[in-house]
């Protein structure tokens, strides 16, 4: 049904919803990864408790846990957990610094975001080498 009111003026605002061409600023990337890693750790918590429980209950349970952990898929999950934890921890520490008004200037914010990605990446690599 045609409206009897005059049309709203056509607006030509730029719109960019293409996920492949959006440039996510690096602090935003670190921020969303902090949330995703926190949610991921929450979901995997029962698994970690299971490993802890098995490994400490008795020798047979320990061997079962060890056998499970030797599976490549289990190692991959361990590595994902490790990365999530290290990223979340590094980004969390950065977040606390920002709360205390350290590093708020844009160039610092960018530099510390990059540092979070690099440091947690390197620590994860170190853990991966140890795992394999």
């Amino acid at each position, binding site marked *: 049904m045609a409206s009897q009111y005059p049309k709203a003026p056509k607006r030509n605002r730029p719109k960019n919803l293409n996920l492949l061409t959006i440039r996510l600023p690096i602090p935003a990337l670190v921020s969303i990864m902090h949330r995703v890693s*926190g949610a991921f750790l929450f979901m995997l918590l*029962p698994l970690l408790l299971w490993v802890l429980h098995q490994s400490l*209950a008795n020798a047979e349970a320990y061997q079962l846990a060890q056998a499970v952990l030797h599976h490549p898929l289990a190692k991959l999950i361990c590595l994902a957990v490790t990365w999530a934890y290290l990223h979340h*921890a590094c980004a*969390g520490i950065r977040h606390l610094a920002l709360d205390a008004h350290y590093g708020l200037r844009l160039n610092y914010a960018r530099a510390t975001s990059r540092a979070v990605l690099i440091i947690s990446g390197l620590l994860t690599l170190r853990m991966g080498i140890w795992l394999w």
Partner: protein
Amino acid sequence: MVDRKKPAHGFSDWAWQRATAITMVIYSLLLAVRFVVDAPSAGFEGWHAWFTPLSFRAMTLLFLWALIYHAWLGVKEILMDYVHNIDIRAKLQSVFGLVLIGDAVWAAYILWSLA
């Protein structure tokens, strides 16, 4: 649930999220140091013995409880942002809350039962 006579409890949630975060950072560093200077010897016996000192078990339990409370605050925050239907949000919060209470009891059981 909200007691309007008191100030909003947003501040203490915020503060607890940070206190638990700092607790976890400290524990993680101590754990890493202990792994380097006092690595557990191989096999179940060594691993079990590594967990025997009461101080270590107490610190580990404190860490796990801090982690669980931190996760509870974080999960509530995330639900608040993405689930706008109050009923669904309340149900999801109850489910996740029960899971986390279960985790907390389980953590205590794990560390206590090996005495």
